[in-house]
């Protein structure tokens, strides 16, 4: 069962905006407030929005849940491998900062001046953690949404669902 037509239309209208805003928070994690965890939670709430306005059948038809598992595992793997790359000095050493290459510029002081090419290993780690948190929280929400159908509300429905 879905919610009313008005709620569904508004959901379709603002769904992509939630995704873009979450990606903005993740990408600007080293310049403005936010970061991987917060941005991942915002993107995962887009999954919650879709699930609550539409139904589980529609979710399963439009998106694959294997993709969520892949995002979760891939994010964790990416995070640990980025940490391992700095093992020449220590684990989690920020070896690209101020080195001049990609992600290697020094940062000037200021608010959101758009220097995305800074931060060393921080932007890749932000993206990895964002991917992992998005996959993890979406999977929890999705499976709990499926589990909520296990117990129906009233007596007659429970007779139908007993199998």
């Amino acid at each position: 069962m879905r919610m009313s037509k008005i709620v569904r239309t508004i959901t379709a209208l603002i769904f992509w905006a939630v995704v873009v805003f979450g990606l903005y928070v993740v990408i600007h994690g080293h310049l403005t407030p936010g970061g991987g965890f917060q941005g991942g939670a915002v993107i995962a709430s887009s999954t919650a929005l879709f699930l609550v306005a539409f139904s589980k059948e529609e979710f399963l038809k439009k998106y694959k849940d294997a993709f969520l598992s892949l995002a979760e595992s891939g994010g964790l793997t990416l995070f640990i491998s980025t940490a391992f790359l700095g093992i020449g000095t220590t684990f989690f050493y920020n070896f690209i900062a101020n080195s001049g290459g990609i992600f290697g510029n020094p940062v000037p002081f200021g608010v959101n001046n758009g220097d995305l090419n800074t931060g060393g290993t921080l932007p890749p780690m932000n993206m990895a953690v964002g991917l992992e948190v998005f996959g993890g929280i979406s999977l929890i929400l999705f499976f709990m949404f499926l589990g909520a159908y296990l117990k129906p509300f009233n007596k007659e429905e429970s007779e139908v669902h007993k199998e």
Partner: protein
Amino acid sequence: MGMEYWAHFFTLIVLVIGAYLAVFLRNLLASVIALSAMSLALSLEFYLLHAPDVAIAEAGIGAGLTTAIFIFALRGVRRD
């Protein structure tokens, strides 16, 4: 400076009222609503204390997704 004190004051009062209601209401759905209000006030308090990172995390996790997960749990125990 004096005004900021009153902003903290009323935000903390909302926080305490929300926490009290979340514990002592008999209706579980009303309890979840009070918890959501408390989380909102906590987010505003972090905002007023100049901690925007924590405020975003609290707004995303505490107010949006925790409510959803509690609603699923309520649906599981079928008591409202």
